[in-house]
């Protein structure tokens, strides 16, 4: 073993130590200082339209490409200076769209029907939750609003 190997080993052990302590040595989360999330929303710049029912709609031209967007970039929340939250995304039609752990939403052209509803949820350490929804609509369906609905809340 040489000195270089030792240096590499030390750095690896240090990284391992940080991961190990953050997983097994952290304080139970119920003992964390309380952090209350104040707001969470899909940012206006990404929203094309807000329906009369107050639903946020993003139109997407399916004929151009498959839809693949990063949902993390679209969300804003406050307070921003905390890491004591867990963000999760869900989709109402999992057979139609997939969301990876990194927040990438993918819908293949063949799978497009009318729209999908994406919900983002933030859980704070104190157990409180905030959520927001956005509807991603096939551009071709823009003029057929009467056909777009999915449950009572989402009739445009």
């Amino acid at each position, binding site marked *: 073993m040489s*000195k270089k190997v030792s240096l590499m080993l030390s750095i690896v*052990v240090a990284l391992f*130590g940080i991961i190990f302590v953050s997983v097994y040595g952290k304080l139970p989360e119920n003992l964390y200082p309380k952090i209350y999330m104040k707001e969470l929303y899909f940012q206006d710049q990404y929203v094309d339209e807000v329906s009369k029912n107050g639903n946020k709609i993003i139109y997407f031209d399916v004929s151009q490409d498959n839809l693949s967007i990063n949902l993390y970039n679209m969300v804003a929340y406050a307070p921003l200076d905390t890491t004591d939250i867990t963000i999760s995304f869900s989709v109402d039609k999992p057979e139609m769209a997939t969301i990876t*752990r990194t927040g990438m939403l993918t819908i293949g052209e063949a799978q497009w029907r009318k729209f999908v509803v994406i919900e983002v949820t933030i859980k704070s350490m104190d157990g409180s939750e905030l959520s927001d929804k956005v509807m991603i609509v096939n551009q071709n369906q823009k003029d057929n609003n009467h056909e777009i609905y999915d449950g009572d809340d989402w009739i445009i």
Partner: protein
Amino acid sequence: MFERIKILTLLQLGGKSRRRAHTKNQTIVNCLIKALIISAITVAIYMVLGLIKSTLSFPINKSVLTFLLFVSQYIGILTCTVSLSSVLYSSRDNAILLSYPAKPNEVFVSKLVVAYLGEFNKNLYFLFPVFFSFGLLNGCGVWYFISSIIMLLFMPIFPVFIGALLSIPLQYIKKLLNRFPIAYAILILLVVVALFWGVAAFVAIIPKPLRLLAMYNRFINGFLTFVASANQFGLFYNFMTNIMYSVNIGLNLLWLVLIVVGIMLLTNYVSMPLYFNLASRSNEHAVKSKTKKIKIQPARPTLLAFLTKEVKLTFRNINKVMNDYFLILMMPVVLYIMNVAFSAIVVSRLGQCMITGFNVLVGMVMVTACNTQSATAITVEGGEFVLLKTAPSKTSNMVWAKMLINVAISTFFIFASAIMMSVSQAVTIQHTWLIFLTIALANFSHILWSFQLDITNPRLRDYAESGKLDGNPNVNKSVRIGLLIGLVFGIFSIILLNENMTIGWVKIICIALALLIFRLLLFVKNLKVFFKRIEY
């Protein structure tokens, strides 16, 4: 010409290879062993990457491959530049090779061929398994695998030829710095300041509180953004991955070939003409000798005389200082970053014990790796050692003088690390100083142990002949023992402190003290018996 280059290359390769094959069968066996090792590494990397992809949702794609490729190759260019500057211009074999009936240009080309083969060999053990694993995991076609082999042949050209070009200014800078050691010291100081500045900037971006699991998605996103922006600096390595992933193959290949030809032409017209001029000049006259009038001083105690000599030997060459103590210089930096990350985690009592344990472990591994000075202290005296022993005084005192230097330097850096630890506030002040005491005691034991290795098995003749410490068994043994001591103390710290904090610390300090006394007694006994017996 080609025949002469081939002979010169084979001569240099013969001196390098460890497993020499004398027959055809041995060559086949060596090749088979190599293929087996590469296959094993490929399987291991494939499994690790597959696991990362499936369980951690970590992207294994073209962008990440480009990032891995250019980072590894930039490191390759850096190491090639440094190694070529010594291999081309100040290698010991230059005196022999340049005296052969061959042109200096042929020696130059043969050295580049040897460097190319060395780089190719390195790539076989790392990049080939990575390429293969990426291809399998992404379900790439046949072209990917064929082109990756072609790229493996292309790749070493860049670090070798760019290294040959950059080694010329580096050589001039080296000579300049040798002439002005103060400038060298200022340069190193600037590098250290820049390093600390970089560390401070890095540390500032660590979020508090640090919750790695909750932040996982954010980390992956950040990493991908970083990779995408870093790949803009990937230069021609982007062409390589484009070719492998069948993106504009013709155009990318054309650019790649043009760049290779350009670099080769530059080397041919810039480096080669300067080679003989630079290689035939030694550093002998780089430093002007000064004649000082020395006052005749009364005789000093042997220990003090040896100590003065050791201090002069240790600090007279800044290159040697950096080479010997680089790792320990990095220790405060590594421990500081680690502790800042720890301080950002809201830890339980067990977590606090773990932090102490990891500090002890990492600190000991780093500090003990520097004790190779003690593990080679007698060996580096080489042929002069027997002359030293003939002095009409207690020459065994030289051992204590050498040891004292090692103890003083390593204790100073352990102290500096303790200060950095207390600044980071990951551990309390009391615990910081107890960690310092534990590491210092264990380190002293390890120095005694390492020194004992060299006293019982000095390699004076090897060193006198080669002037190198490569493959010295005492060095390897010393580093391994250091790792073992670090592991034992690290694990013991976590267990004992978790049981009872106060009693745990008493036990740890007692164990460190007991180890020190034990090693000291053994060392003194070995010194008495073996020092007299050491012969060239």
